[in-house]
């Protein structure tokens, strides 16, 4: 993995949103690195900032009310945070693609599916309609949809959730991006379909030779798909490591809490463990470690100082005083 070149490097990203009489500090300094060919999982509760981080990469955050206060995002040798809107349009859908949570609403209901894919292909690959349609059909076949020609003429509401998400994946990968960002791609789907979609993504990753940033709150998905995992809490990355590191030897109390609150296959428990308390109000952050109020292992220093990064083992870091 370390032999592969760095694909994405996020450095100290700070993002804030202005709301009624307050400033929501959504992201307070996130740094991440992804290598080519990697599948990185970002896991955390709702509201921890994972989607914001992903949207920031493509500059999809509405500014106002959002604001990228500071930070750099290096992609393929350039700081894409400095790029203009026009330049970003060259990247979106072409070198970096994103798929979203609910495929049923992600597609325009008054246009055929074919119309939408063909537009994207035509835009980025600069080919004529006929050629674009041919390529679209190829992509549909690739994602496992039979009878591409008929499917292209369908409207989004005529398809199931699973089909729609396949179409989204087809569209996302149609221009062979280097990075695919998947924001909760299976959350809105049935469990059986979830597995199919994840398998599809795994296979296509190899075939298209792309890297995947997978955002989810579901640890099972992480376990199935990812090589490295970043755990986010309240706008910060609290732990980062390989899949083995995180699952076998979680260092941060939050990660430990997450893992113990689920059941593993065959395990029996009388009560599911929970993490007491709720996520902090991002506009009124307490001093010190943000997880401190809920942490069962908290010590005095935790309420005073924000923890820095501590290395647990090689390639496995966390932000904790313990």
């Amino acid at each position: 993995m370390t032999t592969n070149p760095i694909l994405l490097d996020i450095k100290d990203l700070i993002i804030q949103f202005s709301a009624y009489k307050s400033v929501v500090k959504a992201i307070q300094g996130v740094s991440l690195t992804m290598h080519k060919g990697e599948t990185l999982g970002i896991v955390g509760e709702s509201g921890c900032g994972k989607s914001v981080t992903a949207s920031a990469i493509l500059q999809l955050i509405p500014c106002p009310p959002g604001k990228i206060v500071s930070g750099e995002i290096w992609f393929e040798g350039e700081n894409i945070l400095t790029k203009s809107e026009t330049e970003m349009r060259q990247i979106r859908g072409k070198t970096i693609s994103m798929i979203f949570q609910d495929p049923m609403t992600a597609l325009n209901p008054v246009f055929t599916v074919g119309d939408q894919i063909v537009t994207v292909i035509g835009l980025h690959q600069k080919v004529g309609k006929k050629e674009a349609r041919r390529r679209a059909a190829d992509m549909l076949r690739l994602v496992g949809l039979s009878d591409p020609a008929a499917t292209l003429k369908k409207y989004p509401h005529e398809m199931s959730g699973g089909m729609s998400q396949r179409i989204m994946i087809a569209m996302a990968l149609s221009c062979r991006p280097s990075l695919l960002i998947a924001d909760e791609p299976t959350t809105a789907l049935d469990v059986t379909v979830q597995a199919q979609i994840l398998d599809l993504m795994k296979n296509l990753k190899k075939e298209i030779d792309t890297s995947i940033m997978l955002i989810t709150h579901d640890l099972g998905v992480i376990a199935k798909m990812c090589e490295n995992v970043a755990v986010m809490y309240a706008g910060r990355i609290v732990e980062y490591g390989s899949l083995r590191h995180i699952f076998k030897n979680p260092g941060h109390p939050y990660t430990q809490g997450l893992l113990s609150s689920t059941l593993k296959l065959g395990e029996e428990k009388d009560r599911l463990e929970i993490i007491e308390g709720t996520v902090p109000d991002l506009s009124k952050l307490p001093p010190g470690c943000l997880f401190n109020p809920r942490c069962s292992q908290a010590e005095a220093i935790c309420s005073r100082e924000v923890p820095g990064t501590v290395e647990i083992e090689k390639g496995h870091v966390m932000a904790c005083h313990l």
Partner: protein
Amino acid sequence: MVVVLWVLTMVTFFLTTIAPSDPAGLWVGPRPKPGQLEKARKQLGLDKPAHVRYVIYLKNLTRGDFGVSIRTRQPVTEELKRYFAATIELVTVAIIISLIIGIPLGIYTAFRRESLADHSGRIFSLMGVAVPIFWLGMMFQLTLSSGLKILPLQGQISSYVFLTSPVKSITGFYLIDSLVTGNWVAFKDIIIHMILPAITLSFASLAFIVRITRSSMIEVMTADYIRTAKAYGLGNKLIRYKYALKNGLIPVVTVTGLSYAYELGGSILVENIFDWPGMGRFLWLSIINNDYPGIMGVTIVFAVICCTINLMVDLVYALIDPKVRIAGT
């Protein structure tokens, strides 16, 4: 639809049966000679019981016979034939004005939020629907016709033109007929006469359409699929004017149907003020003179027009929104 129409005929007929003034009395006028009242009653069929009269009325309706106007003593059908085209012309032109100006304005202000144009647009749409049509028409007459003398005061066509280059009647619609027969003089004249009444009629609908278009477009821009389009690098123009617009116009279609109905009602007032020879004015005269057949005739025709418009709106819906199309098949 048919049910509603039928109920409407029942209601209007019922109203005339319980009306206080006596149609026969109106027919013969004041101070009738003895026996004349009885004769009139027989003639008008008023001696038969109400439900029988209703059945006769319905039967006549299906033959296109609306009865005879008490005021003009002509068959209502004949009168309406004359005035139908004029009203339809006026209302249709007014709707077109509302759409052609309203939709682009709504879109413009939707994409320039918080700008001066947006604020003025919003205030205009709030004001536009608050203005009483009849008053607006009169104000226009006061300033533009009588004051500045740039536009004619009343009428559909000036008497001079009417006499010197009369319009050959093909469809009954003066605008179309004069255009088709190459009668430019009459065409220009009619357009000039149409300007004020049409603008007056379209005013409130225009304001409303600006407002609906604006809010619809704003709402559409927050949709998921627009975020997707942006995430795939589609340019602003493409997103706004193709992907967003088609969705955003769907509510506007409904509003257009409603506006047509509204303007039909408004024609009662506008035709009165501008002396436009249409059904609205006929209705008004019928009201003043207690001409029940006249009132009922126009009411039913208006209702039929509204039903037709609603059907057309449904059709357009099916064209734009594929969800409707598939549900219907």
